[in-house]
């Protein structure tokens, strides 16, 4: 390795690493970065733009405020579940039970509140508690007995589906009318509240970017260029304003969407700014290296599985609130597959350690847009499934290609 390079090496240093010199940013460079997944979020935004353009051309109802409002409501539940899926994927693990857990949690909430007359808030907390307990159980099984999470959560999928049937009993369907529950998906923020939230978000984004820039400059460290910062925060600002304008021109910003975005923002903070988040990426990148560095890998994995199941439970509650009922197929069908497909489409690597939690939201938007658009076109389920599957396959291929290119470049 050290004695090899053919290039005339400078007299100092090992001389085998000049590849980073003479780095001019170019279009080809940007293309390479896109391909190698370094700009995962940008990639998915481009994909989303293409999908929206296609459906807007195919059906003029697609880009209307009413439809986009519906889309926002449709993705809230699956997006929330996907937040947990992202955490698990970042570890390089998988959780196949999130759909079943969402169904079971919704059933627990419905039965406790409707049949047993519990206070609805207590019923919601109990449902979240069931989710968390399941996550702790599955995480502990997987880490302590060293069983692949794939297997543990596959068994869980079956068990929790069975538990859901048991909980629902012979009634099968429980209708929800308790306002505390139905308001989760049924509430739309008043226009001025929507703007207040939007302004707070924009101030937060711009403020933290400027603060970070100023801190790094004060410390004499390399900082992002002002232009880059303006483009980045400007794009986010425009997106927020457009979203609020559109949603306000219909019923207002849905509370459920606000909850999802809030969760994504909080989890993004946890992942990028705390030790816990850093360790999740580390374990996903190289679990043994993380262990040697003193990371308590088993405890970390268990915590992440607990979080994933809790978010799954919350997603189930939001779905029940939107559909005003829980039945035996709640949490079933393609919910599990879509909640995993979304983040993967949006650039979270199945191999662990790469991706951001924004992929939960963006992925749900992509998958939800495809589904919503094809519904508008009155396409059959057969077509919907095949197209969604094709998009997922494409995304996974991009991930695999990115990984191979990184490996080829990194360890030349």
């Amino acid at each position: 390795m050290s004695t090899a390079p053919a290039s005339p090496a400078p007299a100092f240093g090992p001389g085998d690493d000049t590849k980073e010199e003479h780095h001019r940013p170019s279009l080809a460079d940007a293309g390479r970065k896109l391909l190698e997944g370094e700009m995962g979020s940008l990639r998915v935004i481009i994909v989303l733009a293409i999908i929206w353009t296609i459906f807007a051309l195919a059906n003029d109802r697609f880009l209307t405020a009413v439809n986009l409002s519906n889309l926002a409501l449709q993705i809230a539940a699956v997006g929330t579940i996907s937040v947990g899926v992202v955490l698990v994927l970042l570890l390089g693990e998988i959780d196949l039970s999130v759909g079943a857990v969402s169904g079971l949690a919704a059933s627990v909430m419905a039965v406790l509140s409707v049949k047993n007359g519990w206070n609805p808030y207590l019923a919601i907390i109990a449902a979240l508690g069931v989710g968390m307990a399941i996550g702790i159980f599955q995480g502990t099984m997987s880490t302590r007995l060293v069983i692949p999470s794939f297997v543990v959560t596959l068994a869980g999928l079956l068990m929790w589906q069975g538990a859901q049937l048991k909980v629902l009993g012979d009634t099968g369907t429980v209708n929800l009318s308790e306002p505390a529950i139905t308001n989760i998906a049924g509430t739309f923020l008043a226009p001025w509240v929507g703007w207040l939230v939007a302004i707070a978000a924009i101030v937060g984004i711009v403020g933290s970017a400027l603060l970070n820039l100023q801190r790094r400059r004060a410390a004499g460290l390399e900082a992002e260029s002002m232009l880059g910062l303006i483009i980045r925060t400007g794009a986010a600002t425009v997106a927020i304003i457009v979203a609020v304008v559109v949603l306000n021109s219909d019923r207002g910003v849905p509370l459920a969407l606000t909850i999802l975005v809030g969760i994504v923002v909080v989890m993004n903070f946890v992942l990028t700014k705390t030790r816990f988040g850093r360790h999740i990426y580390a374990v996903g990148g190289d679990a043994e290296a993380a262990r040697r560095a003193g990371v308590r890998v088993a405890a970390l994995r268990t915590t992440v599985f607990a979080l994933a199941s809790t978010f799954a439970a919350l997603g189930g509650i939001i779905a029940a609130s939107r559909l005003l009922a829980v039945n035996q197929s709640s949490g079933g069908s393609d919910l599990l597959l879509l909640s995993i497909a979304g983040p993967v489409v949006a650039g979270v690597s199945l191999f662990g350690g790469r991706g951001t939690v924004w992929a939960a939201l963006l992925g749900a938007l992509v998958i939800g847009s495809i589904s919503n658009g094809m519904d508008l076109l009155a396409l059959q389920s057969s077509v919907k499934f095949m197209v969604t599957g094709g998009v997922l396959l494409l995304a996974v291929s991009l991930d695999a290609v990115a990984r191979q290119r990184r490996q080829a470049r990194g360890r030349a």
Partner: protein
Amino acid sequence: MSAQTQAGAATAPAPVAPLLRLRGLTKSFGAVQAMRGADLDVAAGEVVALVGDNGAGKSTLIKAVTGVQPADGGTIEMDGVPVSIKAPQDSAALGISAVYQDLALCDNLDVVANLFLGQESQRNGKVLDEIAMEKESRRLLDRLAVKTLRSVRSEVGALSGGQRQTVAIARSMLGDPKLVILDEPTAALGVSQTAQVLELVKRLRSEGIGVIIISHNLADVFQVADRIVVLRLGAVTGEWTAAPENRQAVVGAITGADIENGDEVTP
């Protein structure tokens, strides 16, 4: 045989306890006995070279000391106090740090994140202090005279073998260690950077830090070590000062040609 006069505790029976004292460490992997009662002393400010053939048990020994693969039996003392090292956190708490032969870096994280993994700086309670970590990273890498790393925010997976090795070495210097263990630290390095690492080892010694260095390069070993310990088939078979005239004896002990002497060496 004259060569073995330095064997055992020949280096003056000091009244103070050594920084690290290993006695009778054993470790088996199934049927393979990787360590069969290994003994080793390292004083503060002493550089001990651990040499031996491939499969002699060198890496196994250091993994026992760092808790990455705890030993099955035997005792470990730090400053004369018996300690229990069952996990990497235990050795870290005792001020032991290591560079592993297989580096153990997270390819998906940048240089700063790798350097501070497991001991991240925080501010305001629970928030990562990226600026403090980045500044400290630069200071560390400057100390290692790393000129080739363009950005400490590069992903480690995109670095060359030599750069990765330097990151791993820098990692072991973080947080005032008392004992630094280097398993084949110069294997991926060129001539000038190897010299820098050896300089660094000498600097650690002058700062009173104990160093265990494993290397196949006897020239390096004789240049930097105070004492050379030969491991063979999971046990220490002899130790020598790094005087040039001992070179033949060390080679003999590594290959086993000198085995009849080695067998006599017991604490």
